[in-house]
């Protein structure tokens, strides 16, 4: 039962970390655990039993957006017809554990990203020897464990428990630096996320209750919910969806529930920020996807789409407002996360081919954010500051991190030839296909504003000459600091130029699964 093993890896590693006495060697438990985690994930994802083939999900070498898009009629419904027989094909339904196709995508992202962050963290903690890092290591692993549980469970209630667990386990991570600002960030993070998550619990209850109302036996297991969805009471279902959307949307950072996000991302250590905006909020998005799936199956997808599109555009607008003239690099990246969560929500709401784009965007956005946050971490360490005008001429000061930061900015704003370009293009294509021309226009317009706002800051930070203050300490790009950055960035570039067939398989599988109406 490899999924069980996967879930157990982190607690065990955390326990080990708690036991290791040496402050210097303890961090190495992170990469070790990360690698094991990744191997297990690889086994699960590639293992024959886990991934069932979906007919029409391209598996040959010549997959391409072009061909796939050509294969699809204008609405995504054909997904349904194609994969109807297979909707539960790839999912293990034990009582508690199960891995649905969208979950696979997020799991892959989280695991790979954590490897990068783990190695980075080793170097990072080495620079902060004065702090005791036991709590940090334990919580970081627990955090990963909780996320894995969210992804791998199939019970709405357990998902909620695990999601709240991620909040609690990551709070000490934000607080690592023990500065006034980090306290404030932690406080807001805890309060807002807990409240939001509480709403999500209520939402789950509503969904279960929607069964009772029509005299069905209530349950929180996704499979049962999907089976009963068409027969459930619409009003309670929709109310439940709203609460789930707002609840997990808070965690995901959809505007206007995003308020905790810039603070937390801005103040926490860079590897934590990377995990947050790379993996955590994607996991929250996964929860939104699951909720939307239930509604979609219940035949109420249009309602869900309206709300998702609304919140999506709203998030992009908020991000646009706060990215223009943003002086703090990490807050800027945080708002960019808000923007991209908005894009994901939009893609999910549009449906059809856009779903594929959203699934791809989960990956591309996650890895780009990872490389960006890690490179900003290096800039922060080099300059002792993460705000302009203290940070200038980063490309000269840190040739690797600075350049990756600059290119990563281009990537995240959807410039070819990087990954996000492809995913955003597919989402835009889906939007046009669905005939939402105004939405597409708004989408592009907001992208432009965001590009301008973000570009101003990034170019000021990277170009020009290095101020004297920036030269004081002797931090340079090393293996542990530069390596993970480069790795993430190369993945982003790869996703822009060549997407390995297995990955395409995952994405198509997920998109098909979500379009299914049993």
């Amino acid at each position, binding site marked *: 039962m490899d999924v069980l093993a996967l879930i157990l890896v982190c607690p065990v590693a955390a326990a080990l970390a708690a036991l290791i006495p040496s402050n210097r060697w303890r961090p190495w438990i992170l990469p070790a655990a990360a690698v094991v985690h990744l191997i297990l994930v690889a086994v699960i994802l590639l293992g024959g039993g886990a991934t069932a083939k979906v007919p029409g999900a391209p598996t040959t070498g010549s997959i391409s*957006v072009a061909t796939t898009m050509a294969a699809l009629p204008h609405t995504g419904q054909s997904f349904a017809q194609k994969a109807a027989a297979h909707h539960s094909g790839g999912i293990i339904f034990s009582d508690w554990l199960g891995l649905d196709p969208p979950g696979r995508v997020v799991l892959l992202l989280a695991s790979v990203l954590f490897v990068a962050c783990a190695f980075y963290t080793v170097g990072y903690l080495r620079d902060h020897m004065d702090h005791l890092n036991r709590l940090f290591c334990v919580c970081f692993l627990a955090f990963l464990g909780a996320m894995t549980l969210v992804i791998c469970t199939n019970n709405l209630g357990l998902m909620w428990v695990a999601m709240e667990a991620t909040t609690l386990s990551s709070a000490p991570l934000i607080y690592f630096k023990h500065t006034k600002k980090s306290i404030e960030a932690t406080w*807001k993070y805890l309060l807002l996320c807990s409240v939001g998550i509480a*709403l999500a619990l209520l939402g789950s209850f509503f969904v279960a209750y929607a069964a009772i109302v029509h005299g069905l036996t209530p349950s929180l297991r996704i499979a049962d919910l999907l089976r009963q969805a068409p027969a459930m009471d619409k009003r309670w279902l929709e109310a439940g969806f709203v609460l789930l959307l707002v609840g997990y949307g808070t965690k995901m950072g959809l505007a206007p529930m995003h308020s905790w996000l810039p603070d937390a991302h801005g103040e926490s250590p860079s590897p934590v920020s990377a995990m947050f905006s790379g993996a955590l909020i994607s996991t929250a998005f996964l929860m939104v996807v699951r909720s939307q799936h239930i509604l979609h199956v219940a035949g109420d997808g249009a309602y869900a789409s309206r*709300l998702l599109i609304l919140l999506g555009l709203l998030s992009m607008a908020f991000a646009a407002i706060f990215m*223009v003239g943003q002086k703090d690099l990490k807050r800027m990246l945080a708002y960019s996360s808000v923007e991209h969560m908005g894009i994901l929500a939009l893609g999910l709401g549009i449906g059809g081919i856009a779903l594929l784009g959203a699934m791809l965007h989960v990956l591309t956005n996650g890895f780009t954010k990872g490389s960006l946050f890690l490179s900003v971490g290096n800039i922060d360490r080099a300059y002792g500051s993460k705000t302009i005008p203290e940070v200038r001429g980063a490309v000269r000061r840190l040739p690797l991190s600075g350049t990756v930061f600059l290119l990563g900015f281009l990537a995240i704003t959807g410039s070819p030839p990087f990954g996000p370009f492809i995913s955003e*293009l597919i989402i835009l294509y889906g939007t046009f296909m669905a005939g939402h021309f105004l939405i597409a226009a708004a989408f592009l317009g907001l992208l432009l504003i965001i590009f301008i706002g973000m570009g101003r800051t990034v*170019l000021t930070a990277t170009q020009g000459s290095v101020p004297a203050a920036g030269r004081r300490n002797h931090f340079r790009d090393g293996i542990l600091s530069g390596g993970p950055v480069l790795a993430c960035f190369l993945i982003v570039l790869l996703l822009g130029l060549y*997407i390995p067939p297995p990955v395409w398989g995952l994405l198509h599988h997920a998109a098909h699964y979500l379009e299914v109406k049993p």
Partner: protein
Amino acid sequence: MNMLMLIIVALGMICSGVPGLFFHRRSAAGQRLGAAINVAAAAVGMAVVLFHDILPMAAEVWHPAGALPMGKVALSLDDLGAWFLLPIFLISALGSIYGLGYWPQRKHPADGRKLRLCWGLMSGAMVLVVLAANSIWFLMAWEIMALSGYFLLTTEDGKPEVRQSGWVYFIATHLATLCLIAFFVLLRVYSGSFRLWPTEVAGLPAGPLAALFLLGLIGFGFKAGLVPLHVWLPAGHANAPSHVSSLFSGVMLNMGIYGIMRVVVIAGRPPIWWGVVLISAGVLSAFLGITWALAQRDFKRLLAYSSIENIGIITTGLGLAVLGLSMNHPIWVALGLGGALLHMLNHSLFKPLLFMGAGGIMHGANTRDMESLGGLAARMPAVFRLMLLGSAAIAALPPLNGFVSELLIYLGLFYTLHGSTAAPWIAWVIPVLAMVGAMALMTFVKLTATCFAGQPRTAAAAGAHDPDAAMLGPMMLLAAACVLVGAFPVLLTGLLDHAIAAWVPWPQSPSLAGIFNFWWITAVAVPLLIGTAGIAWWIHHWRRGVREKGVGTWDCGYAAPGRRMQYSGSSLMQTMAWMFRRILWRREKLPEVRGIFPPAADYACNTPDPLLDRVAEPVLKKIGNILESARILQSGAAQLYMLYILLIVLILLLIK
């Protein structure tokens, strides 16, 4: 076969800057190697393109194994594309040679390698833009071109003005890219595939077709620098290293034209209003461009604005061709498109020549301000001769190349006067073009005279000297090309006819040679050349006998005419500046002169780009302020954030 070679060429160009990265930051070897690679690649590419009608050039499509997000790597080349490839190869190669003397690694250890890396990237990407037969692939190449272009413009990113101009370019190019993304996705929606360049959309209703045209026109117009989308162009060209400016002006603007040329035929026979829009945009750009050019003091800004003018002329020709398509006049098509294509090629010959000359001046006198130059003719005779020739060429004077292409466009416009369905209203363009021509002549008289004629106005100018062979060589080559094309245009008619045939959606396309007899141009040009050569010979043998030493210019009785009293460029165009003050919209600081014995007063006047200075920047500032004021939404109070959550729950619950 050919395609494979071209791909190798493109990759060679893209990588030409890479070896340099591994050499020491002051060693010239990397630079030489890079230039060598670039030149070799360009030579091969040039050969393939020029002789591709000997070797068959089938549109080849590549299917590499594995999943590529952009689908098949579909590359193809038709004769129109081939025509656009020529300047890319030529200027990229010559520019990298020029760089050896102009931007030597040991003088620019900080940014030399970055420059050459992006130079290669941009050149190769432009080749790929032309080869691309799949829109995602096209977008990738396009954006690589645009972004490496940005890093080229901001080579000296230490200087604030460079960063500022680069910033404007950055916004403009991204706006263009977004338009193009929208354009291609729409095209995909209507044509059903990412294949370029489709004519499946022929049957579309007017609405979507208009959307496609406008998106394409704006997206590509930004790159081409059509007014009012030109805002990035002047400052960008002025602040870039000169050979970079020549690559931009001589080649990258063509990519915009290329795109527009492809867009207008997506629908088979275009609607009439497309042609009208193009012609209007063209004439507007030509007129405003030359007016603004005339007013510049910075000679690189002047050249940049004259690029806008030439792009305008090219677009006018293209618009005529489009009208020819929609109104079914083969002659208009042949003359309009032929003139446009030829003028584009010519512009890619004399504009780089002029920019390289400008680089030579900066190399010698180290300033971009014409008013502080003068008397360079005696000090840098080689650059003077080359710039003079370039100026004559760009002022469309026979026997040089600029004249031939403008003649074709004029002739095409004259042909709109008669024929079955004449459209005389088009002909009103002619007098405007004539005025533009006269103003172009004035502009370049101003340029050459103020920089080279008379006596040096400053010590810097007095100490100027000719640059070395690495810089002069490419310029001489370009000058020779200008004369050759000007005197023997017949050499190009074959290629031109092929290009036109590739563009026209008709089964049989009109041939230029059938409409206009290019030998007449040769017939007039050759005597002129011989005459000029004779004069040169005569001067060479006659002048030294008669020149009396120490005889100054006749000063009309005024005993001591100082050097700064020479007629300056500004005074040369003072009348025009006054007449066109509304268009120029300059910023003037008039001196306060009062009383019988007024105190010392000073007068300052500069001519920023009106649209950028008075429209674009204020608007952006305003938007920025609005967004700034919206930031209170995130005031830092957790209670407020809670309220947001509560409110959004209620709102969403109420939405039905």
